[in-house]
């Protein structure tokens, strides 16, 4: 176990940023803390780094490889921290920025000048910025700055790498590139890494495991496939990807909402009562006729064919809009136009009743 967080709480005045959080991170793992703003993910990361101190209630513990670091200062914990807005030293060149962590070491553990320079140049090669060593941060693009920040953090050979929304300030194209670069780098270095993000796509794409956080607690921990396909709560279902939500009821293995009653083969419930029905847009099928299967009649309202699949919004009679993601071939086959009458059939639905998932 590389990092072990036990019973961590954090309050700012009367505001609870973290409530009794427990988390274990395996050695060499890339884990993503995912959640909306205010969910406590950044606070958790900063507490692991030592930039923030957890509430001193006598129960909180933070272990790095079995060693309790809860009372160590940030500098003693040997963590590489990367900030959203880079936090580079503006008055230092790129190479000086990278070498900073080695230069400030006490004399007895500080490498020689030539050794520091060799190492900084090696890192410069790693982040593919050879020849940029003498530039200043202001002369670099956002993506380049963040790579320098990463190299600076790696220079101190950290026990764990902590990234706080590292790509949050970059535009979409650069973010995509850096994301896959980070994943390749992680495969190469195998360094235990915690990444904070509010971008679910980023978390699902990069991380080995995803920690979904909401309102100061952890909702679910699992592989990207687990959290996406078997969400543990309504929040996780809602937060990861688009979803259609219907307020409805459950009656004898059938989900009922609005004027639609749909048999759900995989719904094994005999409980009746209020429930929220969640269906992802790509798990709905559109057809011109029902052919005997259950479906809801609706009218095509909007079509957005720009993308890898066609986004169609349909409106059932006296019901809220439903988003459907159609595979492109199917979209062309159906030859949909706005105003067409279609039938909507769920392929897979999830039902959450207020108490627990069914």
């Amino acid at each position, binding site marked *: 176990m590389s990092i072990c967080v036990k019973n961590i709480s954090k309050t700012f005045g009367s505001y609870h940023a973290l409530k009794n959080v427990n988390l274990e991170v395996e050695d060499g793992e890339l884990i993503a803390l995912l959640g909306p703003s205010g969910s406590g993910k950044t606070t958790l990361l900063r507490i692991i780094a030592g930039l923030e101190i957890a509430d001193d209630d006598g129960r909180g513990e933070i272990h790095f490889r079995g060693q309790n670091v809860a009372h160590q200062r940030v500098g003693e914990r040997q963590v590489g921290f990367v900030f959203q807005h880079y936090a580079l030293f503006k008055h230092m060149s790129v190479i000086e920025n990278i070498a900073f962590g080695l230069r400030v070491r006490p004399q007895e553990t500080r490498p020689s000048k030539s050794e520091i320079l060799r190492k900084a140049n090696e890192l410069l090669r790693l982040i593919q910025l050879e020849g940029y060593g003498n*530039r*200043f941060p202001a002369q670099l693009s956002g993506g380049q700055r963040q790579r320098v920040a990463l190299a600076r953090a790696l220079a101190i050979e950290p026990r764990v790498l902590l990234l706080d929304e590292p790509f949050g300030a970059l535009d979409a194209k650069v973010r995509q590139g850096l994301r896959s670069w980070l994943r390749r780098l992680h495969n190469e270095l195998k360094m235990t890494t915690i990444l904070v993000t509010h971008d679910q796509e980023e978390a699902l794409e990069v991380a080995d495991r995803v920690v979904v956080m909401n309102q100061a607690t952890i909702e679910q921990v699992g592989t990207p496939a687990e959290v996406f396909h078997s969400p543990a709560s309504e929040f996780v279902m809602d937060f990861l990807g688009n979803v259609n939500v219907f307020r409805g009821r459950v009656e004898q293995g059938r989900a009922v909402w609005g004027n639609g009653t749909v048999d759900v083969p995989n719904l094994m419930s005999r409980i009746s009562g209020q429930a929220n029905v969640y269906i992802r847009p790509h798990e709905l099928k559109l057809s011109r006729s029902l052919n005997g299967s259950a479906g809801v009649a609706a009218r095509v309202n909007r079509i957005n064919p720009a993308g890898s699949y066609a986004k169609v919004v349909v409106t059932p009679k006296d019901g809220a809009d439903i988003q459907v993601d159609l595979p492109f071939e199917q979209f062309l086959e159906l030859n949909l136009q706005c105003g067409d009458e279609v039938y909507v059939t769920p392929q897979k639905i999830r039902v959450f009743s207020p108490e627990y998932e069914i």
Partner: protein
Amino acid sequence: MLMRIKQYSVLPGFGLTLGYTLTYLSLIVLLPLSALFIRCFSASPSELWQILTEPRVLASYRLTFGTSLLAATINLVFGFVVAWSLVRYRFPGRRLIDAMVDVPFALPTAVSGIALTALYSKNGWIGGLLEPIGIRVAFTPLGITLALTFIGLPFVVRTLQPALEDLDGETEEAAASLGATRWQTFWRVILPTVLPALLTGFALSFARALGEYGSVVFISGNMPMKTEIASLLIVTKLEQYDVTGASAIAVVMLLMSFLILFSINGLQWWVSRSQRKAG
């Protein structure tokens, strides 16, 4: 040439405003300065040399530049502390203290001079305590330095405050996470970042001290060779209708101040070159 400088803007008026600026600056700044130079060089070089190398004049230069430099240096250190605590910490009365920094700006200099003299003279509140342990403040260079420190403080604090507010806490956290001690963080990260502002504050405080008259004349005692500042000497010469002598001293003051401010500006440019190298 002018056409190339001219840039398109939604608000026209480049020619008009530039013309106005040049005329205005010539009338307000250049004209009096040239009058000073012309007046000064109405004397022959040997006469000038004689005026300027008079021991009393040399002593006044030494005193003026020495005390101004010392006062600006003191302000550099303590102004930094004041600005730092006003920017970094939230405490009751902070806004009041923040407003108090401006008092030396607002107070007529003669008032501050009288107030300081009253405090530090032999029978003043503080002077009365210092006198028995052998420290004399009023009517010594120490008193002059004190007055110059007083009037120069707001310049350092006010130029430094925005720079300190601009510092982002993350850079310091980054330094700490990389293992830097607090001292290293201050010395290697914070100080270099605010150095340009610090130098500007120092230059302003120094320039103000060089020209200060009102607050100093009361506390200095104006003893020739000992506590007579250059500004006072100029006034003395004028009172004796020695305009040439007065302008000669003034021109030297002017040139030396220019030289010093120029070098501080140069230093500042050199320090901030990396920050300004925006790509």
